[in-house]
């Protein structure tokens, strides 16, 4: 065993800061999560696994000893809502299902992105070293990767955050079939079915019926009964069969109250092993969440104005001054979602919801500040997450026999002044090199948002008022947008020909900027996603109008 580990170390490219081997971490304060806290103990790591842990464990002779006196050791954190290493959306195309049901589309070789229950994510992963490091540096050691959009998104993979070769060491695949409420890519009028929420739910329902039928044919055929018709070969239906049988869970993305209820209804209808993923409005659907097999609570808090019930407010008599107060009260309510669910007896894992790693940990702190017990938060990020992913025997706590995914920090990793020093993934040590102060602030180590200075340099400054010209097949349309920038986040409003609307999901990455507005077009609420590049006082890019197609836009900042 040790020889093979040594050989592996010799043959693999040597990565700076990553060291394999047999380790003994001594004198550490060990938070095992499963079996309480060991105030002063030793962890022995061999062959990527925890060999022993306890207050009286003696380091073996061959181990490299790391004295962690005064340091804290935690199980590595698990994020069940990641797209890390996933190639950016492959191009859609093809005719797709003309009628409903997964069966129709599968004969064509063309990808039908978002409608691919048989898509195996493990086959596609190409994580970059910097993405791995960014997540690992805050203490995340394992991520569940699946696409973030689509009705049937594919079969997810649980990936350890080693170096690029991580995919070779995948913990589990498939973990689950990932589902959601988005339709076929590039669909719309004259486009592919299903384009709308209406169609998506019908499509999902039909596909699950198709899978049941397929399963019945397979079963009879396998029984070898003479005269039984042979079922067709269909990778997508084959992938759905274990889902309708309850052998593979369905991870259903659902954040808003009605989404959660819809997902749970589908789960009930087909007796799925349903895990609700997101549940940012879970506090409004506690009864529904209790019917699900599992819950993964996203900490990517929605904006108050995007919350179900906001319009109700305008029909209630209230004083003129309560807008701002309501706004902050709702923000508190959203941040206390996890606390509310915990108090109501809902068991859940916590996840980033797609937020950047630093922001994720900052949001965990907000959830704790809003009333979620800190120990529950740590469990939700470790053992409970491992349980939901079906790997509770391998990950999630510091126990002998489990995978050696560990985080060493100066203090509590969920505290305000977390300071991660090193991270073990599969027993491989990664040193955390402290980033320069400015980057730490941006990463959200200690409450990134709110009133802090903007970063100078690499990130575009987008704040101000922009005159936008959107060019579509229908001609030009004018809009003006006023935004403020806080770190990488944009907030503001846009005055369009359809009225003044909120700018949401505004993000700045280097010189690139994305933001979204939601407007009613022909009675349908349509999200328009802008993706552009900022060059001084100019901005250019594309606007994705969902079902309505796409457009280009240019912007000029008003002096």
């Amino acid at each position, binding site marked *: 065993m040790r020889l093979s580990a040594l050989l592996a170390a010799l043959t693999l490219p040597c990565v700076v800061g990553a060291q394999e081997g047999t380790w003994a971490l001594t004198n550490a304060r060990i938070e095992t999560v499963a079996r309480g806290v060991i105030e002063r103990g030793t962890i022995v790591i061999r062959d990527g696994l925890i060999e022993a842990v306890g207050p009286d464990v003696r380091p073996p002779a061959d181990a490299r000893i790391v004295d962690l006196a005064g340091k804290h050791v935690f199980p590595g954190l698990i994020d069940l809502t990641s797209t890390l290493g996933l190639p950016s959306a492959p191009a859609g195309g093809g005719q797709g299902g*003309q*009628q*409903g049901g997964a069966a129709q589309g599968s004969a064509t070789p063309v990808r039908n992105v978002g409608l691919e229950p048989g898509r195996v994510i493990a086959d596609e992963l190409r994580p970059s070293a910097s993405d791995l490091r960014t997540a690992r540096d805050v203490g995340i050691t394992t991520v569940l990767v699946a696409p973030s959009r689509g009705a049937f998104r594919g079969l997810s993979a649980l990936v350890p955050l080693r170096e690029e070769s991580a995919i070779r060491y995948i913990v589990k695949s498939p973990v689950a079939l990932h589902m959601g409420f988005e339709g076929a890519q590039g669909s*719309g*009028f*004259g486009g592919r*079915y*299903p*384009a*709308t*929420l*209406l169609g998506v*739910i*019908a499509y999902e*329902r*039909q596909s699950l*019926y*198709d899978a049941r*039928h397929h399963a019945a*044919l397979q079963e*009879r055929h396998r029984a070898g*009964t*003479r005269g*039984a018709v042979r079922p067709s070969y269909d990778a997508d239906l084959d992938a759905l069969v274990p889902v309708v049988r309850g052998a593979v869970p369905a991870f259903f993305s659902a954040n808003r*109250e*009605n989404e959660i*209820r819809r997902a749970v209804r589908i789960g009930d209808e087909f007796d799925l092993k349903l895990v609700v993923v997101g549940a940012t409005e879970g506090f409004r659907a506690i009864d529904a969440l209790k019917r699900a097999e599992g819950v993964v609570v996203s900490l990517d808090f929605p904006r108050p104005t995007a*919350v*179900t*019930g906001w*319009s*109700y*407010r305008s029909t209630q*008599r*209230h004083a*003129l*001054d*309560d*807008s701002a*107060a*309501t706004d*902050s*009260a*709702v923000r508190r*309510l959203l941040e206390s979602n996890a606390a509310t669910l915990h108090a109501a007896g809902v068991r859940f894992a916590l996840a980033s919801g797609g937020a950047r790693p630093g922001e994720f940990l900052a949001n965990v702190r907000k959830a704790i500040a809003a009333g979620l017990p800190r120990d529950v938060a740590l469990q939700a990020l470790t053992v409970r997450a491992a349980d939901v992913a079906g790997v509770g025997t391998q990950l999630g706590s510091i126990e002998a026999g489990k995978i050696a995914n560990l985080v060493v920090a100066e203090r509590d990793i969920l505290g305000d002044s977390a300071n991660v020093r090193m991270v073990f993934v599969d027993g491989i040590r990664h040193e955390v090199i402290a980033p320069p102060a400015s980057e730490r602030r941006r990463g959200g180590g200690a409450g990134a948002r709110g009133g802090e200075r903007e970063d100078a340099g690499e990130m575009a400054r987008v704040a101000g008022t922009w005159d936008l010209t*959107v060019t*579509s*097949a229908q001609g030009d349309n004018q809009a003006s947008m006023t935004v403020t920038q806080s770190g990488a986040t944009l907030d503001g409003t846009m005055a369009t*020909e*359809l*009225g*003044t609307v909120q700018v949401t999901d505004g993000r700045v990455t280097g010189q690139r900027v994305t933001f979204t507005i939601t407007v*009613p*077009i*022909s*009675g349908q*609420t349509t999200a328009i996603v802008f993706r552009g590049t900022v060059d001084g006082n100019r901005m250019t890019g594309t606007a994705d*109008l969902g079902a*309505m*197609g796409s457009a280009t836009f240019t912007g000029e900042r008003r002096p």
Partner: protein
Amino acid sequence: MKSRVWGQGPGANRGPFKGETDAMRIIRRISFAALSATVLASSAIAQQAAGSPETPRLLAYPVPPAGRLVAITNATIMTASNGTIPRGTIVIRDGKIAAVGAGVAIPAGAQVIDGNGKYVIPGIVDAHSHSASESINEGTQSITAQVRMEDVLRQDAIGLYRELAGGVTTLNILHGSANTIGGQNATVKVRWGLPADSLLFQGAPPGIKFALGENVRQTNRTVLPGQERRYPRTRMGVEELLRDAFTRAQEYRRDWQEYERGRRNVKKGQPALVPPKRDLQLDALVEVLEGKRLVHCHSYRADEILMMLQVAKDFGFRVASFQHVLEGYKVADEIAAAGSGASTFADNWAYKLEAFDAIPHNAALMAERGVRVSINSDSDERARRLYQEAAKAMHYGGASEEEALKMITLHPAWQLGVDKRVGSIEVGKDADLAIFNGHPFAPASRVEMTLIDGRVFFDRSTAPTLEHLMELLRQKQGPRQVTEVLP
């Protein structure tokens, strides 16, 4: 309706402030002014005004009291089925009308609503609505019988509240008209403030949207480069598609019947029969064939209405209602003979080629020939003033007051198959009522209170009216500020 990628088309049903009246626009502007006033207000005042920050109002829907025992007294009661009672009382017990009449005693312990000087009518039923839905048109295929409006209901569409303020209590939430056979409808009650599931009108028979003419032919749509034209492109294609769909539904039903027969006769040693593959689209069409699902058919021209009646006759089902049906006056006898209803606009026409032959006398003329006619909104805006739309049938076509009232109450209820439950003020029916401050057909009248199942879901005395906002502004800024923000 013409759909444009961006920009404002004709019709009021478009902007972000869908269905906005002048008064509402003023309120909105004042609200914006108030927003900036927030900044100026001292934090102490702001805090006081905001109430307890722990329970933000918008997320705490106050459920109206159950209204176990309610009496509306001394009101003019327009029953829609049994004439008008000049000074009458309505007693509501457990959400149902327990008594109605002139000499009805007020039971002890009843919550009394003083109806003196007020008019009470049955809650208005809108047979054509797209409120409360998160998506409307699955326009990718011309047959989408498998999609269900019930799946996409939302409880927080502001249109619902505005409908309550217009006395509307029941809505037929329909799929859009992009497809020959659109989605399954959802009949709902306007229980604004309750979760989406609670909107559903329990016990209402299921229905489905059909559509004919320009919308499904997609002649009035801009086709973007690279987009395919969808079949059918002509009215004959629409008919072919309908006949093909119902022929498939018949075959599908036969397959299931054969399976049910064969299942019982499987001999030992033979493989058990696997049931036919369930097809949700054909399931819905089989229900239509069997008369279990009501067809609501968007239509304009007389020739296509006759075509639809012929197709329905050939396949043995009834069209429950023709929607829009602007040329219905030309074929009223045929519609009446087929037992179909007609749900039309009061005076909305010429917005597209196939709507050119519309006349405002349509509703009254069809009613004269024995068609059960309703006036619908097809718009969150028009839905607020359906009582005025009904009055137009009196003005143009000479419909009687009771006939006009039925056009927004009993007739649409009949078209939706819920006339045993709502649509008139009768003992045993659901206590869905609208209370007006004057005659509902008088131009200046407005809804004071709207009840559903005996619960008050709208009460103008507590609603955020323009007067209320202006009063608040006067208290805060003095009158000068108010005049400044008014246009």
